[in-house]
C-alpha cells in the first residue's frame, strides 16, 4: 500500500482527508482511485485523463516526469505527493 498525500489547499475536495492509503500499483492507477473516491479533487488536478500542467506529482520526493511518468511503479512504503503550483507572494 502506498501513501498518497494531499496538500492543505486541496483538502476541501477530499472530504478534509490529507493522506490515504492506495492499492494502486502505478501512479495512473492511483489517479483512477482518486477519480472514484474524490471526483472533485480529480477535477482540480486532472483534465481529460491527464494531469493538469500546473500540477506536479512526486514519488518519494522525485518528480514522476523524471521517472516513468504516469506509468511509474508504486508499492508498499512509497509516498506520492500531489502538488499544484500556487501564485504566492
Amino acid at each position, binding site marked *: 500500500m502506498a501513501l498518497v498525500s494531499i496538500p492543505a489547499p486541496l483538502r476541501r475536495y477530499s472530504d478534509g482527508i490529507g493522506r490515504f492509503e492506495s492499492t494502486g500499483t502505478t501512479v495512473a492507477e492511483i489517479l483512477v482511485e482518486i477519480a472514484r473516491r474524490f471526483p472533485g479533487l480529480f477535477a482540480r488536478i486532472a*483534465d481529460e485523463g491527464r494531469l493538469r500542467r500546473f500540477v506536479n506529482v512526486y514519488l518519494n520526493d522525485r518528480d514522476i*516526469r523524471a521517472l516513468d511518468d504516469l506509468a511509474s511503479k508504486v508499492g508498499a512504503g512509497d509516498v506520492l505527493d500531489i502538488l499544484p503550483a500556487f*501564485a*504566492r*507572494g
Partner: protein
Amino acid sequence: MSTTNSAAPDDRLERYSRQFRFPPIGEAGQRKLAASRIAVCGCGALGTVLANHLVRAGIGFTRIIDRDFIELHNLQRQILFDETDVVANLPKAEAAARKLRAINGDVVIEPVVTDLDSTNILRLVSDVDLILDGTDNFETRYLINDAAVKLGKPWIFGGVIGSEGQTMTIRPGVGPCLRCVIEESPPPGMTPTCETAGVLGPAVAVIASFEAVEAIKLLTGAHDALNTQLFMVDVWDWSFRRLEIAGLQGKVDCPCCLHRRFDWLEGLLGSHTTSLCGRNSVQVATRRSEPLDFDALAERLSPLGEIRRNAFLLKFTADGHEFTVFPDGRAIIKGTSDIAKARTLHAQYIGN
C-alpha cells in the same frame, strides 16, 4: 561587473568582518560580493527581506524594481517600510532605496518604479549577475525565466502563501528552468492568493533568507553548495521538503530552455493591459488556454462580500474597486486608470 568597489581597501571591508570570517566566504568572497550586481524584481514581502540581507552583505550594486505603492497592510511583513512611508504614499522601490542607503552607504542602490514587462525586462536585467524573485505572480516569474534563460543568467525563484513557501535556484544550462518544473501557471480562480489565503511574515523571511544565502553562494563562486532541489517549508507545521527536480532538465519538452522559445518575453503569453480611456478603468487581459472557473473564483472571493454573476461575467468589489471578470480571465477594474495598479489588483484578487 561593477568595478566601483572591487579594489576596496581593507578598512572598507571591516564592516563585513563577521561575514567574511565565515570560511566559505573569506575576504576573497567579500570582494566578489562588492564587485557583484543584482536585480531584485518586486519589493514586497520577499523583496524587502532579500534587499535587506544583500545590501547589508555588501553586494556592490542592487537594482530594485517594483510597480507598487506602500499600504498599511504591507507593514506586517514588508520589513523595509514603516508608517511614515504609508503617509508619504511612497513607491516601494524608492522607500526601500532610502532605507537601504541609510543602512549601507558603501554600495549602490538603484530604485526603478516600473511594471516589469516584456518591453523593459532585458534592459533591466542584462547588466546584472543575478536576478532575484520577489514577485507575487507567475506571469512575471515566467517573464524573468525567459529573460534569464535567453541571457544565460542565474535567477532564484521564491514564493510564499499562508505558512508555506518554496524556493529553487535556477541556472540556465546547468539545471531545469522554471518552465521545466512548473509547465503552466494555475488558471485564475483555481488556487488561493495571499489576499485570500493570507501570508505569515516569518514564512516570507525564511524563504527570502534561503534565496539570499543562495545569492551569496552564487556570487562568491561556491557553486558546489548551491541548492539543486525544489525546497519547500511550512513554518506552521514544521515540515521541510526537498524535492528532486534535477532529472527534469532535457527530459521534459521545455519550450523555453530546450527549444529556446521565449513566449513571455516576446509578448505571446502574458497580460495585455490597457487603460480604458475616460472610464477611470483598466482592462487587464491574460491570455490563457483554460477558461476561468467561476465557481472556484466565487467561492474563493466569498469572504469579500457580495459576488454577482451570470454566465458571461462575475462582479465583485474589493479595495474600493469594482471588478468585472470574464470567462477568458480578462477583467475590467473600475476606479483607477493606473495600469500597474490594475495589474496588481488583478494578481491579488483573481490570480494568474
